[in-house]
């Protein structure tokens, strides 16, 4: 971000709700990756085909089960 953009952004942050003072700024490439994902595609209704799911359902998480904090 160049200095002028940063100055403008700071000015805007100061007149918006306070949560805007803690904005997260990320490189645009990360957003582009998401945009290319099928989940976020610009969908229009005229497509064919549908997803067939064959994998079994996972077990239901038991609220009394001890939660593991690792993968």
């Amino acid at each position, binding site marked *: 971000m160049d200095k002028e953009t940063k100055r403008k952004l700071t000015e805007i942050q100061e007149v918006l709700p306070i*949560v805007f003072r*803690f904005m997260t700024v990320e490189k645009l490439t990360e957003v582009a990756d998401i945009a290319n994902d099928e*989940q976020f595609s*610009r*969908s229009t209704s005229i497509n064919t085909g549908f997803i067939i799911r064959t994998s079994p359902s996972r077990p239901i998480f038991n609220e009394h089960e001890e*939660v593991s*904090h690792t993968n």
Partner: protein
Amino acid sequence: MILILSYDEWDSESEHVSRWLRKLNGDFIRLNANDFIDQSGRFTYTFDNSNAEFVLNGKAINFEEITTVWLRRWGNPSSVFSDQLGGRNQNTLNTFLDREWETLTQYLFYLLRDKKWITPPAALTDNKLISLVQAEMSGLQIPQFTVTNSKDRMQKFASKSKSVTKVLSNFQYVMLEDEVASVFTEELDTMRIRELPEYFYPSLIQERIDKRYEVRVFCLGGDFYATAVVPTGQNSEVDIKKAIKKEGISNRYMPYRLPLELEFQLRDFLNHTGYDTCSIDLMRTTDGTYYFIEVNPIGKFMFYSQCCNYNLEKLVAEYLLIEDGQRNQAKID
């Protein structure tokens, strides 16, 4: 016939539900807000004082044929014109186009007022603060909150409990040249409050819940499809969305069974809001208390559908067909 009202960007849910409706030979049409300003001739319409009609790819559809409306997403697409205008009159033109679109939308919804609505038009203006109060009236535990423009008031609130701040409504992002600026729920400690000016734009401060994990619930016709979002590793982010892209921290997503009493309270809440379908965010604390955080009547559900293998897009398609009278429960099963 089912009418799906949607948007052509950022809504893969409509697309996936539409695919299942086609597979199940459902009688439906999907129209995106953008279609209403289309000038290619593919889609035209007339809204008279007493009648209305769509013409889609040469086929006329009278409003009398429509029996059910699923208001999935909606918004003003007119900015595609105003963005091109620029200059000092852009604000005036934007305001004008907003009003034109609002008037058109209100009349469209008025013409469809006697149809069965899956997600009522009021959902488009859902108010998070009112929803919190309504949830509390249904017996759900909610985080304490206040909206203020005063640093002094904010300090007093924060002295009673750990706090967070977030937007009152919804905010997506600001596009910069090669970066994007986003807003998440943020922790608001005494240090951060001290640095604020005495008075500022109205802001929400809310009690921070010491969560053990979050639960995202997709609600459909009185049934609940819940996903536990369990932080792993050194994940201490207040907002789970921030954990998605950070190295070394992540969330585990698992199907989750809600306690019956909580389901009862959620159903009571949904009866008051009138939402057939919506997404609800909950948090569960280390002492086992569930907190209602917010409801999103048009929330995205595909991510949780795939994580937990719930197949929600198929369930929504089946629900629409049943509500529209095109199928009965026995035949679907």
